[in-house]
């Protein structure tokens, strides 16, 4: 076969092969970096163990949003929920959620109606924290049955810049004043919990 003819046919074939391989490789990379989504339609990442917990956890604190990806300028809603494996009476719940105020404008904190009005709540851009401190005045505390989900905090946010950003529970490692805790009535002890880190992708315009 004429050498020229071979080249004429080989070059475009090679080009197509390289193109197809590139597309496949990029698709695989995207799949690897996407957050895990199982039966729960709301986007969450794999729960991470609270490094300070040494005893069996009683509660799960979960942060989630209504979808996994936003565009810059788009608004969304975030949820911080808590549920326990056993029934407990609670005296106090202090929640601190770390976030990036340069990535999200957060506003409008609202809370479960079963909780009293928070003794203190704030979107702190100074400390990059969402803060809510619930103190239950009832002598017996707040009854939270096993597996009953309590909506600790709902917040509205607007994505400000592109990138991947996290919301996660503050455990007080950086600052003891910002330690999330759930305090049991009677014992006045804090109860162990696990929490997740939520990663949100924000796409540029």
């Amino acid at each position: 076969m004429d050498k020229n003819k071979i080249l004429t046919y080989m070059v475009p074939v090679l080009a197509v092969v390289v193109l197809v391989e590139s597309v496949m490789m990029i698709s695989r990379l995207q799949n690897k970096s996407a957050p895990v989504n199982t039966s729960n339609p709301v986007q969450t990442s794999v729960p991470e163990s609270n490094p300070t917990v040494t005893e069996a956890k009683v509660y799960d604190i979960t942060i989630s949003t209504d979808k996994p990806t936003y565009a810059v300028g788009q608004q969304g809603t975030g949820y911080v929920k808590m549920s326990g494996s056993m029934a407990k009476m609670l005296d106090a719940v202090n929640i601190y959620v770390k976030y990036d105020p340069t990535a999200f404008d957060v506003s409008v904190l609202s809370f479960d109606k079963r909780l009293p009005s928070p003794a203190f709540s704030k979107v702190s851009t100074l400390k990059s924290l969402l803060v809510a401190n619930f103190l239950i005045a009832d002598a017996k505390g707040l009854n939270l049955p096993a597996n009953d989900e309590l909506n600790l905090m709902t917040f509205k946010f607007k994505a400000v810049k592109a990138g991947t950003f996290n919301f996660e529970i503050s455990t007080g490692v950086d600052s003891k004043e910002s330690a999330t805790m759930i305090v049991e009535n009677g014992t006045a002890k804090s109860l162990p919990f696990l929490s997740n880190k939520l990663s949100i992708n924000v796409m540029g315009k």
Partner: protein
Amino acid sequence: MKNKKIDLISLSFNILLIAALIGGVILVGQNQNTQRGAYFAGASLLIQPTTITANAGDVVPVQLWVQTANSAKVSAVDVNICYDKYLTMGTVDPTTLVDLNSDAFKGIEYIKNDATTSCLRLVAVSSGISPDKLGSGLVKVAAIRFTAAAAGTGTLKVSNTAKVSGYNPTAGATDTAMSVSSYPISTYTITQGTPTTSTLYLKFSMSFLGVKGADSACADGSKMPLSVTVRASDGTTKTYTNVIPTKTTGVTGDGLAIYNVSLPLTGFGYANNIAVFVKGPKHLQVKYGVNGQQNFYNKAGGELSGLTNDVNTTQGFSFEKYPLLAGDVTGSTTGVQDGVVDGLDFAYIKSASNGRATVASGGYMLADINGNCAMESQDLSLMMVSLNNKQGQLY
């Protein structure tokens, strides 16, 4: 012949063009002031001394001068002097810290000290001085007195918005502005000074949130041992524990009992610009940085000065208008303070207040926040006030 003529003409034109091009480039490169009479004279500003060394607490006097070119007469100076955070003008009227050269300037048209930016704006005018008697050449504007606030190195800088104006001798001229050619910078170094070896005394009055003058029989001074930490501006600290305050019969405007503290600062020789940190047995640590403090002191260092080695002459400070926040009674170990007021403290005090326990006068209960010898809902309320207050400071 004709060709030669054409060549010559062509060459001449080329030479002319090149010359015009070079001339144009030179002309464009020069600054052209097309304004008619923009500045009638030049001037420069000076700060003396150019290098300053002082100890914290010292008065630091500086002089502002103006020098006019060609003996031009100066009638007004408008400057913004920024002095960095290691100097201060305090909270007094800045007019009292500026001495004008009354021979050249008759009044301060405008003065403002912005403590946030550490800048002083001063406008001095010569109203009332006839043109022939106005100052010219090197003229002192004013002496300004700063105080060395803390150890560090900074600059005194006149910003480039400074203006100088004067008397334009040209008949019929309306331009009075002078062109300012230099904006001086002086550098200064403030040191803490050599600490004294003799023992200084710290005296202050204070109060505890919720502990009233009346009905606080379980809040005797002996039941309220304090931890007192003093900190100098160079970072030297010393802590004194088990400091017993003396309960007086006096009360604050809110009815809180006033306690007095007199403490020899053994091993701490700094008399000026210190901060004092006070913590009680069921209280958060509070920083006191200024005499008569009434709210959260959110600055680095401290401004407390005047300690001596004589308990009778040492400066006494008044802190009772900003009481210690109460409620830090427990932590991860029950009954042991952890330095924060949180849900653990709430649960502990709530449990105790629900028990409604009481003790005899002079007794003690850790969760008895108001010191009235009875556990009640007010103890819980006081803890929540402290929590709200502290969270507001933090976040």
